[in-house]
């Protein structure tokens, strides 16, 4: 159960409808894997830390670059050329010392995904490469772990909560990367964070069930027009069928 300190720390969210000490205790016992800690994954991790999740596992390879600093909110300008996950670790632990943070200076791939998903209760896909997203999708399907896929481009965002047997998976929706795809994407930190917050809300719903997750939908966010819509998804792909 929760300590007295936890009860005080989280007292404001314990007033949420349907969110009681039981739901907080579920969060406290939960482990989330966040794939990449850039503009979106960093904001997901920070909000999970604020909500009081028990453990966050971060996977992101490489060192901080100058041009990361417009959006990667867990970083620090003092940490250029140092591992991003180290900066992320410090920021998260400074914010909430009571959570466990495990870092991996590597990106998700088909070879490491099973290990990285060991003892994980939920995963957040926030990587800029489709091969990482597809690897995480495959790993989560195999292990039956809920996946919250969060993506953005310019003023647009998409959040897809995925759970095997209940929803289409990422490959049901996009079986391959798009034509004319470019690695560099236009990004404003505020849009990344906005999409990340919706993804985090979906993740907390999926973990605690305090409110119904949007399973079977893609949440579409248009920050230019301030519009949020749900796209109803129907497909079943070979990867889902294989794992079902």
């Amino acid at each position: 159960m929760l300590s007295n300190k936890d009860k005080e720390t989280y007292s404001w969210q314990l007033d949420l409808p349907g969110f009681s000490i039981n739901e907080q205790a579920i969060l406290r016992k939960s482990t989330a894997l966040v794939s990449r800690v850039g503009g979106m994954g960093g904001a997901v991790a920070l909000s999970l830390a604020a909500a009081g999740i028990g453990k966050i596992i971060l996977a992101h390879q490489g060192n901080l670059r100058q041009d990361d600093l417009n959006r990667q909110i867990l970083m620090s300008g003092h940490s250029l050329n140092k591992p991003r996950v180290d900066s992320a670790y410090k920021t998260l632990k400074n914010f909430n010392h009571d959570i466990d943070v495990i870092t991996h200076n590597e990106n998700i791939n088909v070879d490491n995904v099973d290990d990285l998903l060991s003892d994980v209760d939920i995963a957040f896909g926030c990587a800029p490469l489709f091969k990482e997203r597809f690897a995480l999708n495959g790993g989560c399907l195999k292990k039956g772990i809920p996946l919250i896929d969060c993506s953005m481009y310019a003023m647009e965002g998409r959040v897809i909560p995925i759970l095997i047997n209940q929803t289409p998976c990422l490959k049901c929706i996009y079986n391959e990367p798009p034509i004319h795809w470019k690695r560099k994407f236009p990004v404003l930190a505020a849009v990344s964070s906005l999409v990340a917050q919706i993804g985090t809300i979906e993740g907390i719903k999926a973990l605690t069930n305090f409110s119904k997750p949007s399973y079977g939908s893609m949440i579409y966010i248009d920050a230019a027009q301030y519009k949020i819509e749900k796209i109803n998804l129907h497909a079943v792909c070979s990867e889902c069928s294989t794992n079902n």
Partner: protein
Amino acid sequence: MNIKIHYRGQLANHIDSTTDEITIASPISLIDLLTNLTKGKDTTLNDFIFDENNNFRNSLLIAVDNNQVIDLSAITIDKDCEITLFPPIAGG
């Protein structure tokens, strides 16, 4: 019938447009509607929707009135609607 078509993600950037509006006089299959839509436009739109063998690309999510379309040829557009083309995005 008035049909509004929305272009999302990198597609909107590539064709420099977010929306088209067309009027059709009689019901039409979605695949024919999209084929007609690409005529007279830059080939990029066609590339996003159809591959070199003129098959529908698996990398594009198409929704009609916010419902994912599985089989383009099975859908007939016979009333006012909104069609949205979502190429995958991966920005984080």
